[in-house]
């Protein structure tokens, strides 16, 4: 296990290195300057400011300076927020993103599991149909459309929740719902298919024959065996939540990193874009690592050893 973890962490670091390298050079190929009032500066003035930021050096030198910084957790100074270190910027904005992302993920997966299981257990009844319709609807409505609808009806018309802004649990409800839709739908669809499969397998028949109760069978045998594919999709679902948050945070004015990412791209704020890319990448790597460990916990047949694969 320790050996496996060591190996995985090494790969995570390698991934982060490759991602930061690619991002760095992509940024360098982006046209335009990071200066906010570029239109009013002459090339000479732009050069002068570049010099102060170290952007006049050859690209390979900038790359080395940048890498050395990243190793020390220093992503440089934001161009857009000219007094702020990118690490502080991310640190002060990551909280809201983690809260709505985490809540969205948990809510989505849990409700998805229940909905999917119900659909499978009550296969081909109105419950199943409802569950399928709900998941198809939620998977086909993009999160930004759902976000706008939620905001308009639950926020403006019914006044149940704040329309935008940040400041307590109530403010997280609508963004969480908007983000939860996609994991909910995906989980429900996978869960139903998997559960139907498992429920018709021989060992369930055996359990039934042994005289076990329906609830016991589902809880002890069916549910656990159906969870494997669900864990597999947690990785992609995390990516869904991350990309969804970029739009959802903007719509609900959540002061998070998703909203910041969009703004940074629009303003060519290279240091912030690179810092955020690395943070996103690291978060995804950690989620993938956790899911791999979860596999072993749920299905002991999957061994976490350095020799597997």
């Amino acid at each position, binding site marked *: 296990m320790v050996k496996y973890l060591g190996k995985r962490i090494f790969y995570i670091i390698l991934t982060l290195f490759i991602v930061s390298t690619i991002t760095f050079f992509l940024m360098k190929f982006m046209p335009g300057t990071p200066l906010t009032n*570029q239109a009013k500066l002459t090339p000479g003035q732009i050069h002068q400011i570049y010099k102060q930021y170290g952007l006049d050096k050859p690209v390979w030198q900038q790359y080395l300076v940048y890498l050395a910084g990243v190793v020390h957790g220093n992503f440089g100074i934001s161009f857009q927020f000219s007094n702020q270190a990118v690490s502080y*910027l991310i640190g002060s904005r990551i909280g809201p993103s983690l809260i709505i992302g985490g809540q969205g993920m948990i809510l989505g997966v849990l409700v998805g599991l229940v909905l999917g299981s119900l659909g499978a257990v009550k296969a081909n009844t109105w419950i199943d149909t409802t569950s399928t319709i709900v998941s198809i609807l939620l998977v086909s409505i993009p999160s930004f459309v759902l976000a706008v609808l939620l905001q308009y009806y639950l926020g403006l018309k019914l006044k149940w929740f704040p329309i935008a802004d940040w400041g307590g649990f109530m403010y997280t409800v609508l963004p969480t719902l908007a983000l939860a839709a996609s994991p909910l739908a995906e989980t429900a669809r996978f869960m139903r298919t998997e559960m139907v499969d498992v429920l018709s397998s021989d060992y369930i028949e055996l359990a039934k024959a042994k005289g076990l109760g329906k609830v016991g069978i589902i809880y002890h045998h069916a549910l656990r065996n159906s969870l494997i594919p669900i864990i597999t999709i947690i990785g992609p679902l995390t990516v869904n939540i991350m990309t969804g948050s970029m739009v959802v945070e903007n719509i609900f004015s959540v*002061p998070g990193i998703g909203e910041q990412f969009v703004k940074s791209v629009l303003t060519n704020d290279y240091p912030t874009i690179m810092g955020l890319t690395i943070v996103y990448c690291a978060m995804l790597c950690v989620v993938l690592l956790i899911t791999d460990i979860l596999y072993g916990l749920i299905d002991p047949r999957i061994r976490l050893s350095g020799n597997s694969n």
Partner: protein
Amino acid sequence: MKLNSLAKLGGVALLSAVVLAGCGSKSSQSGSKKQEISWMTPSAIATMDTSKMTDLYSAQVANGTNEGLLRMAKNNKVDPGVAKSYSTSKDGLTWTFNLRHSKWNNGDPVTAKDFVFSWQRTVNPKTASQYAYIFANIKNAAKINSGKMAVSKLGVKAEGNYKFVVTLDKPQSFFKFMVTQPEFFPQNPKTVAKYGSSFASNSTKNSYNGPFVLKGWNGTNDTWTLTKNKDYWNAKSVKIQDVKFQAIKTPSTALNSYNSGKLDFTTLSGTLAANNKKNKDYVVFPEASTSYMEFNTKKIPALRNTDIRKAMALAIDKKQMVNKVMQGGDITPKGFVPADMAKHNGKDFAAQAYVKSGTDSNLAEAKTLFAKGMKQVGKKSLSLTLLGADDDDTKRATEFVQSQLTKLPGLKINNQNIPFKSKLSRAQNQQFDLVLSAWIADYPDPSNFLDLMTSNNPQNDGKWSNKQYDALMKKSESTDANNETARWNDMVQAEKILMNQQGVVPLYQQGQAALLKSSVKGVQPFPTSPQYDWAKSYVK
């Protein structure tokens, strides 16, 4: 108070949410009697360090929390600020400001040394200020900024604590407007020294000498408050207690918040503006900003022909563009220099320099002129690419201009919409045929626009060039610089030449459409930065 009660209830079920939301709207209703305004802004504060400030939204806040020598006032005038009075020498090169005894919010006196310190810091190349260029006319500023001279050589000095003297390289009658801008505000040297590189990076690491102090800004968040500064020299004239800001980047979210009563002000853009034109709260604030089309006369020989340029200008129906296409708060242009920006002896510059053909539309005449011009350059057809940014507004603008220009027989237009910053780079490197550009004035003087079109200006993307125009602009800055009327007339002549020659095609003058609660009074809008001033606002 509302936030706290909500936070405590975290996790409570839906029913209580309904009750709570009821409470919330009640408290905001009773709150409307308080001297408090909720103000929407499209962008978070980028920095409060006035040496590094570049964006309008930060400048708005800084104009609330700090004050320079003079203060921007309505009708193209300036009010006394930290300076009680000022005088200029006969040659227009020396400006002497007599400062009042006023205080920073930490109790320190605001002295002439604070101005010297701040201005030197901005011009210092180590500060890497993106706005240092605006100091260019102060003696030695350009040399200092390019690292060729010591900072102490800047043409500013403190004579005692309360007399501040500025020496300019050449006379600049509009210098009085420039000193109202955040780049020219004083800085408290003690505060800057105390916080070093983190100076002004949040609301507590700063000193304020303006009508308000900044509260609740952690450096990256989207909400903050301007609270009345009791140490401000003119505090008794400030009635409003709090101006609460919320940065909302999605226009529809801002409108929903306004409609729910959470905001007293919100900006509107594009279709949202059009949909809300009948709202009783609808207002438009004209901006000193012109959107215009440039011709690349360097790359395309046919565009050097005045008749062709004039024909293309006349072919574009600006009224239709403003009313049917842009739909926001934009208005039809009167010329290159925006209307209601600069006045002399009570006369508006744009009205005085108005050339009908420069902004008119007349398709029949356009066709005749175009045929004439094409004959002169010996061409039967012309195929041009129209470059523009890829935001919604510019896309609609390029599509409309394309549809209008192709009405000229023999003219083919292809549109190219690319990201804003790429567009800027291409325009500055003459990689275009036609380009849609926009300019917003830094200070309310016509030269701010007219300088752009002089032959050697780096922002003259299309390289249109006219000797007489250059000569007039030069004269306005040299021999006529101290004679306000002569200088004004030079600039009027220059604008007339620009329009008669159609060096550019003004398409529309930008305006900010917004919703503002009728209970909010006294917010002063300006066509240039800082755009709004809340110092005299109140809630009725």
